[in-house]
């Protein structure tokens, strides 16, 4: 005997089935009219190029709702519409368009994948996982690996580490050399306490993609937990924001729907102008994805990446720029500067030489090469180059080259000549902090200096120190104090310089600080203004 509540439930089920059959038998046109319309985005505040393309999209939707009868064709129209919205970051409109696609053609893996991307961007991690789950059932080939990587990332965010491990492991099996899969696996292993494996995988991902600098942080945490604290510190020195990459054909196709790369270039430059380098890098990255061969985009993106400290990524952009514009001196110069920031001085030198060859009248590569000479201890060659640059310099650059000419002479061991050069700079009224520091030190050590000169040097050194009490300003003031016989004060200031070096982890690299301290304790002044390998002469 069927009880009353159960009978009620059975009747309700029959009613719902009837409704479903009735709806299925409606004419297609009628059902489509019941598809929710995509909310019209607020376009007034949108940038003009975006407003134009989205206005067109709004009109198109009205048209194809009226005109298209085939559900598959209508679904594809909504898919295209969703991609246009998503490409311009109108995520809610894109989401509604994709839901209409699924209403018309259910269980489309690549559409669920798109909904997963939107949920991830909105911070709805659980929804994202649910969408990726559906995307990976009967998965479209284009989402097989990226779907697992994206789901793994969301699962990590949700603390579902074991499931994340499964996803990343499978992604590595399917695409063994994908940094985001290997790095993700390493991050998941770190979270589950599998430290050695984590470190191994994170290192491997970084070998494949050195620009994935964010992985250095996870690597450092794994090494820290393994007790390798020094190695952890070294890894942290390289940590940055660069994310591990993976091929994502679906997202790439969406990005192709977006505005012309010119829009993103201009928007990126505007953000850079406001100091929003992260946003600028994002926008310029989009421009780069749309037009990987545009030299203006590559140059702008490379510069922003350098400013963000993402030097490996910057090098990659400038290398592409050089391939596209092999005859551009600027391209080689930018590459040289990025390589120099990365510590690849021989690569930088080659790039500067090529820039100098292409533009013999451009003093920038010549000056960069001279700085490399100074760094390498080839002081005489540097002095010769800076002397030539000084002779040919316009007013604006004259004092810059005079300073480096003087410093090169100092590095070459000719203190008197260096002092003459730098004093000319001071007399010309161009006393900047770098020049004041160098002259104060020279007067306090190897140079000619009367009582009045030393008093002036002391005033400069004190002003520098009180404006910014750094390692170098403390050491400079100590040097001048010692020259004036104030050895107790010199010891105090030198102790501060040493403490600053200790804090910065640079004490071992600065034996000159301890040597000068020993002299002050013995009531002797410093011997030379700068050690031969002092950072002032170096470019790294």
């Amino acid at each position, binding site marked *: 005997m069927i009880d009353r509540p159960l009978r009620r439930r059975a009747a309700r089920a029959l009613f719902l089935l009837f409704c479903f059959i009735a709806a299925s038998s409606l004419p297609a046109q009628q059902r489509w009219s019941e598809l929710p319309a995509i909310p019209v985005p607020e376009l007034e505040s949108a940038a003009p190029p*975006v407003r134009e393309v989205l206005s067109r999209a709004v009109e198109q939707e009205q048209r194809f709702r009226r005109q298209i009868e085939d559900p598959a064709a209508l679904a594809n129209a909504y898919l295209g519409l969703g991609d246009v919205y998503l490409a311009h970051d109108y995520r809610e409109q894109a989401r509604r368009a994709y839901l209409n696609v699924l209403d018309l053609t259910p269980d489309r893996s690549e559409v669920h994948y798109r909904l997963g991307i939107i949920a991830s961007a909105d*911070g*709805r991690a659980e929804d994202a996982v649910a969408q990726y789950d559906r995307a990976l059932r009967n998965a479209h080939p284009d989402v097989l690996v990226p779907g697992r990587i994206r789901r793994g990332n969301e699962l990590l965010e*949700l603390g*579902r580490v074991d499931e994340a491990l499964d996803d990343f492991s499978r992604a590595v099996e399917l695409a063994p050399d994908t940094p985001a899969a290997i790095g993700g696996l390493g991050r998941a292993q770190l979270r589950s306490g599998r430290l050695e494996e984590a470190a191994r995988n994170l290192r491997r991902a970084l070998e494949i993609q050195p620009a994935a600098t964010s992985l250095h942080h996870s690597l450092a945490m794994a090494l*820290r937990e393994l007790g390798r604290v020094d190695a952890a510190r070294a890894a942290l020195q390289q940590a940055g924001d660069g994310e591990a990459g993976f091929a994502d054909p679906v997202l790439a196709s969406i990005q192709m729907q977006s505005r012309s790369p010119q829009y993103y270039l201009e928007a990126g430059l505007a953000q850079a102008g*406001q100091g929003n380098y992260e946003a600028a890098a994002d*926008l310029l990255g989009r421009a780069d994805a749309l037009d990987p061969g545009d030299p203006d985009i590559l140059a702008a993106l490379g510069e922003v990446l350098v400013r963000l400290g993402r030097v490996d990524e910057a090098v990659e952009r400038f290398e592409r720029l050089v391939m596209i514009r092999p005859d551009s001196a600027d391209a080689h110069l930018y590459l040289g500067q990025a390589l120099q920031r990365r510590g690849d001085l021989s690569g930088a030198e080659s790039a500067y030489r090529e820039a100098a060859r292409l533009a013999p009248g451009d003093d920038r590569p010549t000056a960069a090469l001279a700085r490399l000479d100074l760094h390498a201890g080839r002081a005489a060659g540097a002095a010769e180059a800076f002397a030539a640059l000084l002779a040919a310099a316009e007013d604006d650059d004259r004092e810059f080259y005079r300073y480096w000419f003087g410093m090169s002479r100092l590095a070459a061991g000719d203190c008197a000549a260096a002092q003459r050069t730098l004093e000319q700079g001071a007399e010309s009224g161009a006393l900047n902090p770098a020049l004041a520091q160098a002259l104060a030190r020279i007067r306090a050590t190897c140079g000619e200096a009367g009582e009045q000169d030393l008093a002036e040097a002391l005033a400069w050194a004190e002003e520098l120190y009180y404006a910014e*009490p750094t390692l170098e300003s403390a050491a400079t003031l100590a040097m001048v104090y010692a020259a004036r016989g104030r050895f107790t004060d010199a010891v105090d200031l030198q102790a501060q310089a040493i403490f600053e070096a200790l*804090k910065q982890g640079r004490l071992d690299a600065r034996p000159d600080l301890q040597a000068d301290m020993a002299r002050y304790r013995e009531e002797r002044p410093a011997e030379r203004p700068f050690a031969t390998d002092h950072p002032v002469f170096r470019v790294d």
Partner: protein
Amino acid sequence: MGLALGAPAAPAAWFEDVTAAAGVDFRYETGADGAFRFPEIMGGGAALLDYDGDGWLDLYLVQGGDFGPGVDAAGRPQRDRLYRNVTGERGALAFVDVTEAAGIEARGYGQGVAAGDYDGDGDADLYVLNFGPNQLWRNDGDGTFTDVTEAAGVGDPAWSVSGTIADLDGDGDGELVSVNYVDYSFDAHRDCQAAGSSRTDYCSPSAYAPVTDTLYRNDGNDRFSDVTSAAGMDAPQPGLGVVAADFDADGRVDLYVANDGEPNQYWLNRGNVTFIDEAFLAGNAVNASGAAEAGMGVDAADPDRTGSLDLFVTHLVRETNTLYLNDGKGWFTDATGRSGLGPPSLPKTGFGTAFVDFDRDGWLDLYVANGAVVAESDQLAAGDPWPYRQPDQLFAGVDGRTWRDATAEAGPALDVSLSGRGAAFGDLDNDGAVDVVVAHSGGPIRILRNVAAPGRHWLGLSVETGAGLHGTALWLLDADGRRAARFRPRTDGSYASASDARVVVGLGDEATARSVEVTWPDGTAERFDGLAPDRYHALRRGRGTESPRNPEP
């Protein structure tokens, strides 16, 4: 016997809004006039302190006011307000405005406030953080305050948001830490647009150069010295939140600064007022993915009862709030993933926050005051003149390492959407239930009375250590005299605010007397026995019994 846990049933409601009934009518005025000047979007804050020593928490509210290049700051009509708690006299939660009587004349463009006994005279002083010179108000102990800023030399001109008053050199008086944001000025103002939009909105901090926080060493007699550089803290970052505590158990009070969009700083105290930032190696500079997040508010506590202080930092929309667990040596791991705190925070921008056992079940809960910093598109489309509203959230502690989103069951008081900023936490009516005061950018102050789980028991503790508060640890002992849980008396943390220095320990359904051990700032331990439940106890040094070191829990 450990903590007696309360029944798992959720309370009927957690909070009720009693602002109007309590007689507090205050609104933080941003002075916004459509120019989108950055400081307009970041204030304000509140402080809870018993300024008159009558045993009831009073309320200090920071005011912004008219703002812009043409505004005469000294003549600004709006100013901070001090409200005296008169609940003891009236029988129901009530405050009266005593600003003038107390001598408070604070007309700076206020952002936040810190409270603490900097001069060790037994009463709480106030350090007001402004866009423009800060102000130090010395509590004279007679119901009035004196502005000692100029003589003390602590009128930090930088844009300050949060601060702490803590004894960092162990000499018994309190140093001042002013957490400073970015180098904004009217002359250097920038018009910023959201990416992909031509609509003007408030800039992100990366549009301006960050500035260095300031450490003022207390030299005694209301005199301070700026020792920021000598302390090794000359490292500009856009700071917003700060806590002072001994994180690495070396007996010295360290500092943790939450920075907006840049790595947080973890200043380990090396003695002689010198610090070193070890945040990266310690694992609390960035999140588990290695990404710097937009740190706003912060609190430190021992929710998992390991005896070490963990950290909770609130963040921008589309970033999770982050829980860092301390391994006991001062090294942290981002444990947000399994905590239940991550996903619910993604759609919100969190500011003021604190670990508090609101329902007294023995597990620390978390309150997060939320508010947007970039206009919410739906509010903008609806014509909202201040479209930066988001509802606050409550997370109920489950087992010390996981929380559940209890916002929906918190009652109508949390079904309100404003632009939350500072939040102060304290027991306003001395009923053992910690209440919440939330300051809102461009909105009214809200006083949320805690009405959760009225039958549950508690133990109220206050320690009389003056400026040494943040170097003091409270340990609830179990029946065998073992440390069952650690509590951190503090006034700092949250965002731009100062909280009740007392500690309320939730005892669940257990109504028996308990024992507590205090580790004083000099490291000595003292035990206090027979502390009756459901009342406050003042723990005075030398009144308990000397305690041998207990094993860590």
